């Protein structure tokens, strides 16, 4: 069986694979968001415009 061909298991496991994929993507977004908030101390717009007061 070549790896490129659609196998019955691909269809059967679609919900699991899609679900896990979405959860992982959401986790990445979450960690990124958390990093931005922590690094900028909550002042995201100020940090972007470069006018963070020391």
């Amino acid at each position, binding site marked *: 069986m070549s790896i490129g061909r659609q196998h019955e*298991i691909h269809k*059967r*496991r679609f*919900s*699991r694979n*899609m*679900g*896990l994929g979405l959860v992982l993507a959401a986790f990445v977004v*979450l960690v990124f*968001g*958390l990093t931005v*908030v*922590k690094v900028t101390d*909550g002042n995201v717009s100020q940090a972007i415009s470069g006018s963070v007061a020391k």
Partner: protein
Amino acid sequence: MSDTSADNIVNEAQFGDYFALLKPRVMTLVVFTAFVGLLAAPVSVHPFVGFTAILFIALGGGASGALNMWYDADIDAIMRRTQKRPIPAGKVTADEAKALGIALSGLSVLMLGLAANWFAAAFLAFTIFFYVVIYTMWLKRWTPQNIVIGGAAGAFPPMIGWAAATGGVSIESVLMFALIFLWTPPHFWALALFMRNDYDNAKVPMLTVTHGRRATRARIFWYTVVLAIFAMAAGFTSLGGPVYLSVAAILNVQFLIGAFRIWRRDEDASEVDNFAEERKFFKLSLAYLFLHFGAILVEAGLVRFGVWA
């Protein structure tokens, strides 16, 4: 053909079955009470940090749910209420549930520590340990006080939410704990009075069986009395205010009347109307908890938006 699990086509787990291992309905209660605990705290938290904290508190609760289903798979298969859970239904193996539970426990504690603080994370780790080891493995099948102890595990989330905001414990967070802790026994014992056979068949020692139904009725009443005292006391801390106090006054009077009626009733009267009074009390108990925490949330909102100081 090999006979690996990949070929088990008939009963294969879907994504939703793994999600069901996390006990989503319990998780909604955890989300709600942790959210109230976080917002009622006198420290403001960045909304994104607050969201992340609540998400991982809920995930920690879900992880302990999966570990509970792993350990309790044998009794879940016997009780009607739990027969359709993923493990007794044959969709997920007990080992998979254990692995998922352990992995998500670690992840949720780590992420809560990174998002909020390590005190809250340690508190979450303790809650998972308490629910899985102390309650599920040790006490649930051994003592009729199982409901009381299990209630403590369910009562920690608002304290963790409060800790995520403040980094500590205070009288307010202890009173939120007391509210759920003292509410759980009357709530579940009322259920046990009208859902009789389930726990007997599974040989889980419920108070109704070990100490009799008369004693259970009396305990429902006395727990409700203590609960009412603590619920009203919470109204005089920073959690409370006019909204909370009026909601609590009405609900506690109703709850006390319901508990008193259950106490005074005998089994024959209950059989005649198919446990109408007990069912009513159980329904009221759901509204009781939801409205108390709802009122705390409203008070926190009113303070935050400056309606009163």
